[in-house]
């Protein structure tokens, strides 16, 4: 039994060697961050500013260090309120803590109240404030603090919190939301090779917390979970330690755990046409579904990589199934990283240089009736399995205008034909409707729960 894919084309008797791999070409973390699209803040602060924040004794990230004569670094911070939720077209931060919840109450009012509380906590947390108004070290001496405290002294490091609603929330006999359910908000179908763990899949609600500081992302999820006790229960969480996408034109393209540059051809935050066409949910004539207009769909796939097997593949095979070079991420048809792939260019045997079963060919808009997606995934390692292999891979997240047109057909093709898929195992899956952003005084999902 093999995965159904044809294995490597037979290599001619030469080896391309990986000298390029020895080259230290991952830019260090201290590069200037792209300025937020909303133009708020964000010059020149990377993860490196953490230390400075400690040294300067920042109070909850509210102020800047003032030592030295140079302009103090401005903490990277994104506004919470806006037309769209932050954390989608926001330049991808370095770390992720993702949480999915099951709603345990059957009261719609209680759930609405939670969303209100989550919204106000999120508005505070993303601005570097404690989760509650009292703070981690003040208030009634006989009461527990309303913030857990591990973020004291840390700046928000670009924290964004993005909320979503799973299909199960709209089922009959729950909150009376059946008629509000958009037709595309469905559990994903089975794809060839899926080996999904139900305990790590699905969920009624989700929170995507992204920050350049893992402790900040975790702090946010922890405090939101705490606020939710009694109303929701944590279903699964996923930690991601390295972004595998760039979502802003200035961002250095990072690498995934296959060592490949990932995010090259991604939709970028400064491509409004692509965002409108492929990411945000479009207007609908049906007023019952209008609550999602301007929002998006989040599809999450926990994809294990058989990295031990991958590492034993020749550089020839690795580049072939990818369709891009490992060193530069250039298309196999030539050029540099951002050159357009030429899918028609052939080599000596008449085979295309970008192989028919390569990931890039199969995922490219040219081969998918113009479909694009905004990818925002993260590398993960969750220890190892009982057989001594790293439980590692890519926690794939994508935001699309409609999963039925923008995710399912592409995943179906990839699962069946993608040469890369042979080294992958999808182990969890979830889909959420992500409502649009909120204005001050509103709460996330207000149109459904007010």
């Amino acid at each position: 039994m093999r995965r159904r894919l044809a294995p490597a084309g037979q290599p001619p008797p030469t080896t391309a060697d990986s000298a390029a791999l020895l080259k230290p070409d991952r830019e260090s973390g201290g590069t200037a961050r792209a300025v937020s699209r909303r133009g708020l803040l964000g010059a020149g602060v990377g993860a490196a500013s953490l230390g400075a924040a400690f040294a300067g004794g920042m109070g909850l990230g509210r102020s800047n260090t003032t030592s030295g004569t140079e302009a103090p670094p401005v903490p990277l911070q994104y506004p919470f309120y806006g037309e769209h939720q932050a954390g989608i077209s926001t330049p991808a931060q370095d770390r992720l803590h993702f949480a999915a919840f099951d709603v345990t109450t059957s009261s719609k009012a209680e759930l609405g109240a939670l969303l209100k509380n989550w919204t106000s906590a999120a508005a505070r947390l993303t601005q570097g404030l404690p989760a509650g108004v009292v703070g981690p070290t003040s208030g009634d001496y006989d009461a527990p603090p309303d913030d857990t405290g591990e973020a004291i002294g840390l700046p928000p490091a670009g924290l964004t919190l993005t909320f979503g609603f799973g299909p199960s929330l709209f089922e009959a006999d729950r909150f009376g939301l059946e008629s509000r359910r958009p037709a595309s908000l469905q559990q994903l179908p089975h794809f060839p090779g899926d080996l999904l763990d139900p305990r790590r899949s699905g969920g009624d609600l989700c929170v995507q917390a992204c920050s350049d500081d893992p402790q900040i992302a975790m702090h946010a999820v922890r405090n939101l979970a705490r606020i939710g006790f009694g109303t929701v229960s944590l279903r699964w969480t996923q930690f991601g330690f390295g972004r595998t996408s760039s979502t802003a034109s200035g961002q250095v393209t990072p690498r995934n755990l296959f060592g490949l540059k990932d995010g090259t051809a991604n939709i970028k935050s400064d491509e409004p046409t692509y965002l409108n066409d492929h990411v945000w949910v479009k207007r609908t004539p049906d007023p019952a579904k209008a609550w999602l207009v301007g929002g998006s769909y989040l599809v999450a796939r926990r994809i294990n990589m058989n990295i031990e097997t991958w590492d034993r593949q020749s550089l020839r095979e690795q580049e072939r199934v990818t369709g891009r070079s490992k060193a530069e991420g250039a298309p196999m048809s030539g050029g540099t990283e951002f050159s357009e792939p030429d899918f028609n260019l052939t080599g000596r045997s008449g085979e295309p240089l970008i192989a028919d079963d390569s990931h890039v060919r199969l995922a490219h808009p040219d081969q998918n009736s113009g479909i694009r997606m905004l990818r925002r995934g993260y590398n993960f390692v969750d220890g190892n399995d009982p057989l001594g292999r790293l439980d590692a891979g890519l926690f794939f997240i994508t935001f699309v205008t409609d999963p039925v047109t923008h995710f399912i057909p592409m995943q179906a093709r990839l699962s069946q034909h993608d040469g890369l898929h042979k080294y992958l195992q999808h182990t969890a899956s979830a889909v959420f409707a992500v409502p649009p952003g909120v204005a001050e005084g509103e709460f996330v999902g207000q149109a459904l729960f007010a």
Partner: protein
Amino acid sequence: MPVRLTGYGLLVVVPASLLLMPLTAGCTGSSRSGAATPGSGTDSRHLTVRATDAACTVTPDSAPSGSLRFTVTNASSSVTEFLLLDQDQLRIVGKVEDLGPGLARDLVVTAAPGAYFSVCKPGLAGVGIRAPFSVSDSGTSLAPAASNADLVNAATTSYAAYVERQTDQLMAGTAEFMAAYLAGRDDQARALYPKARTHWERIETLERFADLDARMDLPEAELAHGELWTGWHRLEKDLWPARARGYQRLSKTDRRLYAEDLAEATEQLQTRARTTRYTTAQIANATKELMEEAATAKVTGRAEYWSRTDLWDLQANLDGARAGYEALRPLVRRQDPNLAAAIDTKMAALQKLLDRQRKGDGFASYDSVSEDGLRQLSDAVNGLSEPLSQLTAASREG
């Protein structure tokens, strides 16, 4: 590919190990296309080739004998290739094929002292741009310069015969199994199932059979939405439905339908095997992929989900890998004796572990193996896969 120095318990130095040297100063600078650029003579065995539309500049144009690395950059506007030819310009010592414009790739060859020719073929056309390239005697002892043609020929002949034999036996075993299955003698069918499949599992990774693989050996989880499930595992589920929820046994007619499809596919396999020869690269790839199969599907108990006969398959994968390797072994021994020794050791180690799981004329059920036992098998498969991943490079025909 950089060598892993631990792991085998042996120091395995493959020719490509020179790659570890570029860590010295000269090679860390990067060209536009990312491959390392050789420096100011710190490594006289690392050369650059700049292939433009009109020129093919090899710098320097000579090197001491040994393992040479050419970093070829395509600075032309079309697809190119680079070849290193022997003195008579007949034999290809090594080549970089199908290099897109702007890209760079390395070629690693072992070169004995003598005269050679470098060739670039911009646009893959014509005789290309040729220039002499000389290799001086460095005193480094090399594998005999003699042609490997005899060894290559022996390898491909014996391996083709092996594959043919397996398909013949598969045909016979399948017929016997089907007779029992169609007559409703399920106990007998269950006993024959893993035996017949052994002959398939020994050759399952050959690229030539990929389409038949999907028809004969697809596990249920690999099915696309709405796709018809055929092959061995469809019958397997029918014979061992214990793990299936609410399973409805196949009717007599359906049994016949699936059996006939499998028989037909097996026949095609047999016919194809009679007329196919395999290059050493194809043999090497199929061999290492058998161990990858073992690692991802057999050691994990995913292949034989219903029957739990994964260890039979694991043994068959190992048999097949051994056959492929035995065919190539003389070639590998000539080119990289340390690698041959490592593979010998690791194959024996895996076999020893598997022997402990023997039961009757076959193997214990996957479920009866302890977690510790599985862990050891997994480690042994990995231990063997590691040197096998060097097999393609070490059994080059050149």
